């Protein structure tokens, strides 16, 4: 265990734990767009920047991305010092210039009092902030269907060769975890389309509601040892099934006790 001070309060952290995770555990609101608990930190969005110092640093302090900074003993952290807030405002300002139409970015910037960017607005800009959550999550899911392509200002998230990704199973992990809801997909009847690839949706054998894509179900049943039939029943019907089972158990228990 390591003792650190965050905003004047002592906190305990596990050795090797990243600052952001301690900060989040203390329910201190530090913004972060590229952070996701399921994947390794990347430090791409720069918003989780905090000020750190130690008593022996003679008044010197430095600014670090808390998602990538492992705790050190006796660290003194300020998450909302004037300078930190100023840094965050500058970053928000830049984000606003690049993604003026993203409601998520605007809301976050507003919280820091940035209502209008002071830079030139990129009119044809999209809402992708290149945080890489989608690609890292896709890797964590084991599909590796999409990646960050190109570099510099031409960088984008794209499937290989910009064609429908052969390894995508339509699980939607990328789209649902995108901090700016940039990744488009559509669910129509029994078809799902994402990354220009069309998927067949499985229908619940009991109520007919769609569950997950056939590819995703096949992947899960093959690699996670779950019977394929499990995915042919929707969540609501699974729950109904569970309550019936629980009812039966209660009846047996009662029977056994009497």
């Amino acid at each position, binding site marked *: 265990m390591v003792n650190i001070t965050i905003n004047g309060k002592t906190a305990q952290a596990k050795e090797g734990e990243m600052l952001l995770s301690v900060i989040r555990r203390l329910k201190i609101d530090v913004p972060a767009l590229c952070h996701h608990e399921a994947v390794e930190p990347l430090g791409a969005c720069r918003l989780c920047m905090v000020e750190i110092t130690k008593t022996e640093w003679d008044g010197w302090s430095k600014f670090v991305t808390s998602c990538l900074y492992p705790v050190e003993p006796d660290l003194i952290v300020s998450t909302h010092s004037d300078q930190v807030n100023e840094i965050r405002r500058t970053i928000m300002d830049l984000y606003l210039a690049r993604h003026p139409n993203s409601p998520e970015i605007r809301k976050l910037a507003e919280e820091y009092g940035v209502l209008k960017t002071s830079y030139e607005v990129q009119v044809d800009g999209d809402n992708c902030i290149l945080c890489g959550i989608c*690609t890292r999550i*896709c890797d964590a899911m084991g599909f*590796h*269907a*999409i*990646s*960050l*392509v*190109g*570099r510099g200002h031409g960088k984008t998230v*794209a*499937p*290989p*060769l910009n064609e429908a*990704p*052969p*390894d995508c199973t339509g699980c939607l992990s990328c789209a649902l975890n995108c901090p700016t809801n940039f990744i488009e997909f559509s669910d129509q009847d029994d078809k799902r389309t994402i990354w220009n690839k069309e998927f067949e949706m499985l229908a619940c054998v009991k109520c007919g509601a769609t569950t997950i894509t056939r590819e995703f179900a096949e992947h899960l049943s093959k690699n996670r040892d779950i019977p394929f039939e499990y995915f042919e029943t929707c969540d609501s019907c699974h729950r109904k099934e569970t309550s019936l089972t629980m009812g039966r158990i209660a009846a047996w228990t009662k029977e056994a006790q009497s």
Partner: protein
Amino acid sequence: MKHDIGKLPEILDRHPKSQESLIAILQDIQKEYNYIPCEALTETATALSIPLSKVFAISTFYNAFSLTPRGETIIRVCTGTACHIRGAELIKDQIETALGIKAGETTPDGKFTIEVVACVGACAMAPVVINNEKYHGSVKVSGVKKLLKVKK
């Protein structure tokens, strides 16, 4: 479009089948074909058991790799600080006019590709234009035509 990737098995054989060989293999493919055909990317990914998305990310990241066919002669115009000050922009314009294409493009006959690079480490010779592997220093606008004829 189908591409001839007949030399690929030979290139793959030259390297150990591990992740570390990826860039070396891509360099060899680039050298052999002057670009990387997309079939070669897929084959390389399979041969090295690396996800295709990763191979694509790496091949688009480095400027040394091109996924579209490039010209026999690659004209690199340096626009680094020293060359920029000594008129690289004018040289670039002149080359573009002479070949009728923009920087980054290839002439329809497949003879020339213009590339803009930022510093080639020969600042004393600024402005620098590189015709394939040959460095030309102190290039003047009037000398551009001659420079393009060097290797035709």
